[in-house]
């Protein structure tokens, strides 16, 4: 069914446009402005063109942070999406278990991000943490403040713990939307559980999984507060992701020009990847929405 063609619909979008413009376009213009100037103080600024961009693109510490960020986001997607779908498949479909599961799942999502970091500090510290003490009790020395690998393991665990429930909730919503008749048909055909999943559930979840992949990609790529509280980007620079680096630059060192240039590049990278994901997922399989534009 075709939508009605009417340009007056713009009036309904106008409030959204206005409020997002205030909080996105104007600040973004400020960033663009900074990115091409050298700022010494109020009123003292020199136009420097693309100098900051060149500096940022050739900065080896930024390259390292970028690689770290890529590995991190890849791991996040590879672990969280399948795990989330798996848990969603196992969740009860009716009865008292449904609201209880949903409430429990939403719990980690409702905790402020720096408190997430705090929880995991308390949980993984070798002296007072349950996890830290248990691992060390097994004879494996574990200290996320000293060993880069342990820091990574802790950050990954925290991230998976924190965000897999979002994937579960989205996937569960997608599963619930499949009419019961599909499953009856599958049962009559004697389809295996795998076949049911592969040919009925997975294609029907395409829409919600698109949102899940996009959200998880963006948010993991922009992650700041949780690892910052947990590890402070250390030990060394082992868990210094792009946002942590950016805030160090902009607030810590007050390098506004390079920080602004870096921000723009950062934004473009996320935009590019998200667009690629969006296009790819729109065109995978043949869904009810007709495969994109």
């Amino acid at each position, binding site marked *: 069914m075709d939508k009605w063609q009417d340009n007056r619909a713009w009036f309904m979008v106008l409030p959204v446009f206005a409020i997002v413009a205030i909080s996105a376009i104007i600040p973004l213009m400020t960033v663009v402005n900074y990115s091409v100037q050298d700022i010494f103080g109020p009123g003292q600024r020199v136009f420097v063109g693309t100098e900051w961009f060149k500096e940022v693109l050739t900065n080896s510490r930024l390259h390292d942070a970028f690689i770290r960020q890529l590995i991190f986001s890849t791991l996040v997607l590879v672990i969280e999406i399948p795990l989330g779908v798996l848990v969603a498949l196992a969740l009860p479909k009716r009865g008292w278990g449904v609201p209880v599961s949903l409430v429990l799942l939403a719990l980690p999502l409702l905790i402020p991000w720096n408190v997430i970091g705090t929880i995991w500090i308390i949980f993984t510290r070798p002296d007072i943490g349950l996890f830290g003490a248990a691992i060390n009790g097994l004879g494996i020395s574990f200290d996320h403040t000293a060993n880069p690998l342990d820091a990574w393991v802790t950050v990954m665990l925290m991230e998976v713990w924190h965000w897999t429930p979002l994937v579960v909730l989205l996937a569960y919503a997608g599963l619930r939307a499949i009419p019961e008749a599909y499953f009856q048909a599958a049962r009559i055909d004697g389809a295996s559980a795998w076949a049911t999943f592969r040919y009925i559930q997975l294609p029907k979840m395409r829409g919600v999984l698109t949102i899940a992949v996009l959200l998880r990609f963006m948010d993991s790529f922009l992650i700041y507060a949780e690892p910052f509280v947990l590890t402070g980007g250390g030990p060394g620079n082992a868990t210094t992701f792009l946002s942590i680096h*950016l805030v160090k630059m902009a607030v810590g060192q007050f390098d506004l020009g390079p920080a602004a240039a870096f921000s723009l590049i950062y934004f473009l990278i996320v935009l590019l990847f998200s667009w690629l994901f969006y296009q790819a997922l729109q065109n995978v399989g043949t869904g009810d929405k007709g495969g994109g534009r």
Partner: protein
Amino acid sequence: MTLRKRHIGLLIYFGVLLLPIYWMLNMSLRTNADILGGFAFVPTDPTLDNYLKIFTDPSWYSGYINSIIYVSINTVISLSVALPAAYAFSRYRFFGDKHMFFWLLTNRMAPPAVFLLPFFQLYSTFGLIDTHIAVAISHCLFNVPLAVWILEGFMSGVPREIDEMAYMDGYSFPRFFGTIFVPLIRSGIGVTAFFCFMFSWVELLLARTLTTTDAKPIAATMTRTVSATGLDWGLLAAAGVLTIVPGALVIWFVRNHMAKGFALGRV
């Protein structure tokens, strides 16, 4: 057999999910000396001192009030601007609609850190620093696009014949929207409100930057007090536990809407 395996798997998952939270709860019921003194899976001598301190010290509890105020304002603003826009996206084709829709989502892709300084300057210009409304508006950056996105999904699930019939019966748009359409997508609005609340409640970077004292969020209060007094693990844990409570209450109230929304398959 597979059913049983599935249940065991689920139980393990929920166990892992709750363990870190339980550990914080455990810490919050013990004094700092007790925590550092010995390891205990269950507090041997539970105390509510940490909570008492938070509830009696205004510099602690005002943080909770501030957070709740700006989160509520944000949820109201986000929903009221997103409802008509989502309707437009779900019902009409208009100039640039698809680009606009994707552009909205791109605003979630900008690192919040990018906006720190420009936001600070923008809100300083209008004298809005350290007000609840400043934080509420800045959080619209990521909540409004999300609200539009989610609501559009729910609205597209409502057949358009309902709109056509109402217009034929002589309903004006506002009356149709208010009395017929909004009740139809009640669950969707519940789910959207939940997500707006959630993302605004958990955000720290912008909220901390735009406030100093009068509107300081609890999450920021925690970082400050902790670094000033050395680490009081018990107090920190108690404050952490209390940050979960409002969210848990909200989700408890919208759980039926959530279940219904999930049954429609629209999030």
